[in-house]
C-alpha cells in the first residue's frame, strides 16, 4: 500500500505540492492527471524517495520513505521522467548493474534478466550503447529497470511518452498484465491512457487534488455523459429536428456542429434521452446517418475540473 499524509513541497515561494493525502491499494492502477507543472512529477519523486517532502510523510508498504528509505525502495520500482540511464552503457550492462546494485544474486539475476529482455523485446539491442537507441527502446530500458526486481509498487512517470502507437499498446498491455497483484501509479497527460489502463484517476493542479474517482466516475461528471448525438442524412431537416428534440422533456439543451450538422442533445438532470429521441426519429421518419450515446468525455472533464489551468 502507498499512503501519503499531507505531502507538501515548497520551492522558495512556489508550493509545488500542497497538502496531498491519498492511499493506493494493491490491484489499483492509479492515473495521475494534471496540466504541466501541476505537481505530478514532484509527488512521484517524493513517493519514490528522491525528494524529501517539506512536510508530511509517505509510506510505501508500511515503510516511511524518509526514515526507512532503503526498505521502502526495495519494494518499489521507479521510472523517472524521461527514463534517464547511462548513455555509454549497453542495455545489458546497465540492467546487470541495476540488478547487482539491488543486491540480486548472480544465479537469480541471469534468469530474471532473460525474462525481462523477452518481456520488453530488448534482445535485438542488448549490445548497442543506450545513446544510439531510439526513444522507444530507451523508454523500454527504463521500464525494464523499474520492473526488474518484480516490485510490489511501481511508479511510472509518463511511461508511454515518445512511443509510437504500437509501442504504447505494448506498454499498456504490460501494465495491465502486472496490475492484479501490484500497486501501480502512472502519470500521464494522455487521457486515453487513463481509460485504457487505470481503474482510478486523480486529477491534480497547482499541487492539490481536484478529483479522485474511477475513469467512469469522471466521465459521468461530463455534460456529455448520457448525451445523444445524431446526424441526419438530409441536412435540410436539421433545424426542424433540433426544434423537435428540444421539445422533449428529457432534453436540457442541444448543440449543432455547423460543419458536420451533428446534433448533440444534452440530458436533463437524471434523464436518459436516448429512447425518446429514438422514437421521435421513428415517428418523424428522419433518415438517420448516425445515432449514438455519449459516455462522457474525459478531456472535457479534465478541462472543467482544472479550470483551464496551465500552471
Amino acid at each position, binding site marked *: 500500500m502507498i499512503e501519503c499524509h499531507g505531502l507538501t513541497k515548497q520551492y522558495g515561494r512556489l508550493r509545488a505540492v500542497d497538502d496531498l493525502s491519498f492511499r493506493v491499494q494493491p490491484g489499483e492502477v492509479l492515473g495521475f492527471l494534471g496540466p504541466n507543472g501541476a505537481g505530478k512529477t514532484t509527488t512521484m*519523486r517524493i513517493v*519514490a*524517495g*528522491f*525528494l524529501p517532502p517539506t512536510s508530511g510523510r509517505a509510506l510505501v508498504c508500511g515503510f516511511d520513505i524518509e526514515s526507512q*528509505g*532503503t*526498505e521502502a*525502495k*526495495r519494494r*518499489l520500482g*521507479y521510472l*523517472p*521522467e*524521461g527514463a*534517464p*540511464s*547511462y*548513455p*555509454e*552503457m549497453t542495455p545489458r*550492462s546497465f540492467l546487470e*548493474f*541495476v540488478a*547487482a*546494485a*539491488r*543486491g540480486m544474486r548472480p544465479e537469480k539475476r541471469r534468469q530474471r534478466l532473460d525474462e525481462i529482455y523477452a518481456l520488453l523485446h530488448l534482445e535485438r539491442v542488448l549490445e548497442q*550503447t543506450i545513446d544510439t537507441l531510439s526513444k522507444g527502446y530507451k523508454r523500454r530500458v527504463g521500464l525494464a*529497470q523499474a520492473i526488474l526486481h518484480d516490485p510490489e509498487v511501481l511508479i511510472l512517470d509518463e511511461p508511454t511518452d515518445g512511443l509510437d502507437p504500437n509501442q504504447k499498446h505494448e506498454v499498456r498491455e504490460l501494465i495491465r498484465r502486472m496490475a492484479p497483484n501490484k500497486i501501480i501509479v502512472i502519470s500521464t497527460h494522455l487521457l486515453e491512457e487513463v481509460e485504457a489502463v487505470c481503474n482510478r484517476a486523480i486529477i491534480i493542479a497547482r499541487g492539490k487534488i481536484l478529483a479522485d474517482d474511477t475513469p467512469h466516475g469522471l466521465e459521468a461528471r461530463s455534460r456529455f455523459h448520457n448525451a445523444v448525438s445524431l446526424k441526419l442524412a438530409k441536412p435540410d431537416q436539421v433545424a426542424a429536428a433540433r426544434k423537435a428534440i428540444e421539445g422533449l422533456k428529457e432534453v436540457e439543451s442541444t448543440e449543432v456542429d455547423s460543419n458536420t450538422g451533428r446534433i448533440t442533445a444534452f440530458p436533463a438532470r437524471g434523464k436518459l434521452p436516448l429512447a425518446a429521441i429514438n422514437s421521435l426519429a421513428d415517428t418523424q421518419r428522419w433518415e438517420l446517418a448516425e445515432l449514438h450515446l455519449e459516455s462522457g468525455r474525459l478531456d472535457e472533464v479534465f478541462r472543467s475540473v482544472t479550470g483551464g489551468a496551465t500552471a
Partner: protein
Amino acid sequence: MSSVAAIFRRELASYFATPIAYVFIVIFLVAASWLTFSFGSFYERGQADLNSFFTWHPWLFLILVPALSMRLWAEERKSGSIELLLTLPIEIWQAVLGKFLAAWAFTAIAIALTFPIWITVNYLGDPDNGIIFAAYIGSILTAGGYLAVGSLVSAVTKNQVIAFVISLMASFVLLLAGFEPVLNVLAGLPQVFVDAIASLGFLTHFQSISKGVIDVRDLVYFALLMGACLYANTIVLQLKKAD
C-alpha cells in the same frame, strides 16, 4: 557492501567505455615523462632515483584530476541519472564511496602505468626501490585527496566547467599551503601558524612520504581529508539532489 561494489564496477567500466580513460592516461603519461626528462633533468642529475619524476605529480594532478572529477556528480545531475541512482535501495554514502573509489582506482591505474620509468632507473643504476614504492603510495594518496575535493565540488553544481574551475582553485589552495615559497612569505607569522598551514597542504605530506617514510601522521592527513570531503559530499547530495 555489494551495492558499493556494483557502483564501483559500473563507474570504472564507464571510464573505459568513453574516450575519457584513454585521453587522461595518454596525457598524464606524456606530460609526466616530458616534465621528468626536460625540467626535471632526469639524466643530467646523474642519480638513480625518481625524484625528478615524482616532484611533478602534485602539479600535474592539479590540472588533470579536476578534469576527471568534474563529471562525477555534475553529469549524473545533468543527465538525470542521479534520480535513478538515488532511488535504488542504497544509502547515499554508498553511491558517493563507490563513485569515488572507482575514480581513485582509475587514477591509480594511470599512475601504475608509469612503470617503464621505474624499469629504466633500475636498468641505469641501483635505486632504493623502497623509496620509489613509498613515493608511488604518496602519489596515489595525493591523487585521492584531489579527487575527494573534486567529488565534493562536483556535487554542488551541474555545470561541469564550473566544477572544474572551482575544484582547481580549491586544490590549488591546498597545494600552495604546503609550497615552500608561499610558506616563506608567511615567515613573519608565529611558527605555530606557519606549521599549521603547512600541515594542511598536500605538498608537505606528499614530500614527507616520498622521502621513503610512510608516517602515520601523513596517512591520517589523507584519510581525514578524504573522509571529510566525502562526508560533506554525502550531505550536499542529500540537501540538493534535484536542483
